[in-house]
């Protein structure tokens, strides 16, 4: 049975140090987020636009489909991974096992892209 986007995100969130995750479309629309109430709707709408514009810009200027951003803030890490039809964002604590998160993100991105195609 195919998993929903929420199921996929909740699975990513099981990794120790992952606080939450969300998926944006190429238009910047938030398609799914988990936990649902972690991010405010307005904040997510703005972040969706920013991430989709950033990825679109990098794709155009660098002539590549695959874009990954690993952003480090004072007390947080944000991984943004492009996928067909949008992008996956994973918010983590600084001490998170990054290789594990990236492996989970790769796997989740394929599943989400497949879900988006349907």
């Amino acid at each position: 049975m195919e998993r929903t986007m929420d199921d996929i995100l909740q699975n990513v969130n099981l990794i120790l140090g992952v606080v939450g995750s969300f998926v944006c479309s190429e238009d910047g629309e938030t398609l799914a987020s988990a936990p649902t109430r972690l991010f405010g709707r307005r904040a997510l709408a703005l972040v969706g636009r920013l991430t989709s514009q950033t990825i679109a810009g990098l794709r155009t200027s660098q002539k590549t489909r695959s874009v990954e951003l690993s952003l480090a803030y004072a007390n947080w890490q944000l991984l943004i991974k492009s996928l067909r039809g949008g992008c996956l964002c994973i918010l983590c604590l600084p001490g998170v096992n990054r290789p594990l998160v990236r492996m989970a993100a790769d796997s989740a991105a394929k599943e989400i892209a497949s879900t988006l195609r349907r």
Partner: protein
Amino acid sequence: MAVQGNLKDMSLTSLISVTCNDRSQARMRIVREGREALLFFADGNIVHAALGEQEGEQVIYELLTWDEGQFELEPDVDAPRRSITASWSAILLDGLERIDQQSEREAELAPTEDEPAQNRNLASQLRDIEGVSGAVVVARDGIVIAHDIDGDPDKEGAVAVFVGSAASQIGQALELGALVSGVIELGAARARMLVVEQPDYYVGMQLEERASPSLVLQQVQSSSG
């Protein structure tokens, strides 16, 4: 008979010195970029100087900064009035000292002349960090201040600013605090750039295949104090 020439070929200090030592009575007319200055000589001294509305010693001080201009020395012309009483040698010494002081002040107040060299140095220092294959220093408006990079510095600088700026905005929207750094990974080849935000600019560093962004960032932070 009038003597003519250009200050490029004979300096004003020499002209004044020669005319005063000859104790000539004369008028010197100097024209540069549409401005006309008149100097009057009598009894071995400069007795009057005029430049536009200006008169007196200040005119000589200004004329000493002119490194070119057509001059014409016409003998036996009386001064219309006297605006200078100091000796010609004292005026020249004072004028040349003022020029030296002005040059020193300009050198002190000209950090912009040193800044590019410092930034070039910064870009090269960053490239020297183990794991860094190129560095670009770019202002927030996208202007590349310095680079030590093999590719297109404008293109790489644009990527650094574009991502750095968006990352800051994302951090603000989600209340994640200040951006520390960002790693951009592109394409199947997984080319990576580490972006670090500084108060006035962004630094973008191309990373070698096996470089650790964390270790490079540590080096950058320790080198910037």
